[in-house]
């Protein structure tokens, strides 16, 4: 495959574990990250439980210095980026940091940070008496740019606010950048935080969906490089991203409904990856109890892949991670491979759908950390 991406390490911050090993063990053991979140915030919450990191303290991961002004989204992203870089074994120095960057998906940055900043303009004696140090937190590229400052990534720095599919979009965008020479190493993934603000926003947006999974929060980032270069250097791969497709289909347009659109993109992605449906052993879907979205995904997956592949529903144990949904799906697939040489070389598919009609597909091949044939 020409121009494919190698995953050479990854980092994750999720309710079931921080770091690839802890996260992977929890996944294999079937542990759920669902917690009582009643005491997390001063505000009342619409649901009592969420897949949240209730005891997360940024200082445990990043120390005390310079962490005071990081919001939760940013703290997750900076932490996951550090874990991913360490996992890949890449050493950043003045030779390579100009060629190293990050593409980070989300939904809107931190709605909590935006709303709390805006709140100051309403409740203070003077509307401009906001805290200047918190102004950058109200801009949605905050987390990506803080990752760059923290880890000294001087290459491409981009934020992809594409909602549930945003990690697929980040892979698509980042893959294009790598292939076309705009970077050599990119951290690709997504982040979403849990907050009272987001919980209520989602509650109102999906009030007609009682089967909706509890909310989750997470950040997951993959270290990606040109696969050929990695192989030429004799370095191991955790995975090879064989194909990435995204598209958008008007949910109200029956002629090109999202299910058909996702099926088309899934078929095209398999073709581009050079694999057949029969070779796909696992499909990690984004299903999270939003009936109209789940129906799209199920129909497309069954139409193209049949019922053969194992179905991995990350939301079952990680919750509805919003803008980080596809990112945790990718992390879950990588986690299955990490300690299981029996899966070496197997092909998996990640599918993602958004209520608005966005669809995304990733086809990847994974290896264990113990596997010889990477």
């Amino acid at each position, binding site marked *: 495959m020409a121009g494919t991406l190698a995953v050479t390490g990854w980092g994750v911050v999720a309710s079931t574990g921080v770091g690839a090993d802890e996260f992977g063990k929890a996944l294999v053991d079937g542990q759920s990250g669902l917690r009582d979140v009643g005491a997390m915030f001063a505000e009342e919450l619409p649901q009592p439980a969420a897949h949240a990191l209730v005891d997360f303290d940024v200082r445990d991961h990043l120390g005390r210095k310079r962490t005071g002004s990081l919001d939760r989204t940013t703290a997750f992203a900076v932490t996951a980026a550090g874990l991913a870089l360490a996992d890949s074994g890449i050493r950043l120095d003045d030779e390579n940091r100009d060629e190293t960057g990050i593409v980070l998906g989300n939904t809107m940055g931190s709605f909590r940070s*935006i709303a709390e900043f805006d709140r100051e303009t309403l409740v203070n004696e003077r509307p401009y008496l906001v805290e200047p140090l918190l102004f950058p937190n109200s801009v949605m590229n905050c987390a990506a740019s803080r990752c760059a400052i923290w880890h000294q990534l001087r290459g491409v720095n*981009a934020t992809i606010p594409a909602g549930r599919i945003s990690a697929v979009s980040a892979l698509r965008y980042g893959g294009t950048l790598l292939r076309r020479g705009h970077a050599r190493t990119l951290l690709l993934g997504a982040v979403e935080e849990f907050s009272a603000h987001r919980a209520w926003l989602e509650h109102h947006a999906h009030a007609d969906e009682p089967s909706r999974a509890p909310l989750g929060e997470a950040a997951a980032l993959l270290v990606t490089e040109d696969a050929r270069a990695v192989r030429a250097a004799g370095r191991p791969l955790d995975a090879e991203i064989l194909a990435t497709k*995204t598209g958008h289909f008007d949910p109200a347009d029956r002629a090109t409904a999202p299910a058909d659109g996702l099926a088309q993109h899934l078929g095209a992605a398999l073709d581009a990856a050079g694999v057949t449906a029969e070779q796909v052993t696992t499909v990690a879907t984004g299903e999270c109890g939003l009936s109209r979205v789940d129906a799209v995904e199920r129909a497309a997956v069954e139409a193209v892949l049949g019922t053969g592949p194992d179905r991995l529903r990350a939301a079952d144990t990680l919750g509805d991670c919003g803008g980080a949904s596809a990112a945790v799906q990718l992390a879950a697939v990588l986690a299955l491979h990490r300690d299981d040489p029996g899966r070496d070389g197997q092909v998996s598919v990640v599918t993602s759908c958004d209520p608005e009609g966005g669809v995304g597909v990733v086809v990847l091949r994974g290896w264990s950390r113990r596997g010889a044939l990477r």
Partner: protein
Amino acid sequence: MDRRVVITGLGPVTSIGIGVAAFGAGLRAGRSGVSPITSFDTTGFPHVMGAEVRDFEPASLLRRLDPRQWGLASRFAAAAARLAVEDSGVDPDRIAGPRSGASIGTCTGESQVLQSLTEEWVREGFGAMSPHEAAQAPTHQIGSAVHRELGFTGDSMMVSAACAASNYTIGNAYDLIAGGELDYMIAGGADAMVRWGHAGFYRCGLMAEDACSPFDRDRTGVLAGEGASALFLETLDSAVERGARIYAEVLGYGLSCDARHPVAPDADGIARCIRRAHANAGVTPQDVDYICAHGTGTPANDLTEANAVRDVFGPTPPPMSSIKSMLGHTMGAASGLGAIASVLGIREGFMPPTINYGHEDPALTGIDPVPNAARPARLRVVQNNGFAFGGNNAVTLFGEVA
């Protein structure tokens, strides 16, 4: 084996004009879009001026979308995209479908929707948030609006790089078409003005009082702006085959990150970005005839930008003007509007001015800001700068089609 990529349609939605004819006339005349802000209550703010888009009637511009279902940034973006397609003269049916996509930038997303939701929370509690607004709040609604308006089913790429976002989208669209992934793309960005942005800029000491005067000795800062930019991109072959008017070719782009400060710009990071863009586009500094500056009008930005440009170009760089003097800072739309001004300049032979220019800044020796009046010029290669909070830098290059 790259395909050559050209720009054949422009869709500006701005405070100095909606549509390419009005916008182009405004640029040539050096018109100011600044007026007292009306979209939020400015009581208690010492500074109350901004560049709002007036007379925006989405219902008369949009063919498919019902404007009532979308937030303002989405309406801006979809209207701009529709204008760009109409300007290109392409048959809208020909470009519907999977070979067409959009890459849309934004700084603050559906900011007025978020502002309204925040007001509901603060005044009446979380339970009072409007479900209608909650559904409009996700940022990718903006890209969704463009796709639905135009019937595109290819990539809908949303990019936020704060105020440099549109240049990222132009680069992405160029890459996808040049590399053969897609055939037609809309690139650009949209943002709507909000109270919290106004407060933030003011409180950080970055906001001017009445006028934005980039590169002037006495410049005091930005004025907030809003609007949208959309550019229609296709291959050179496709444009020639259908006999389209070609504004300019996309030559390439570069991205970099300062990785230094959340807010303050950095000349090293910007200079790196410019050099990357030149290398990607295959041009040298001597080739560049004009620079459409980021030019926010803050003392720090303009000095930093000038230092980076002088680092790359030497002591007398090509003329470099700031259309933010007319449009305010339109955030996610800004570098896309800069791109529109750049390619209009190439096609029609002029450099837009920096208005409100009064006094030369001794710290900016060698910088020619095209003061106060547009200047006729043949522009073969134009550089368009976009920088942002978080040290997100993006530079695009456009060229006359030989």
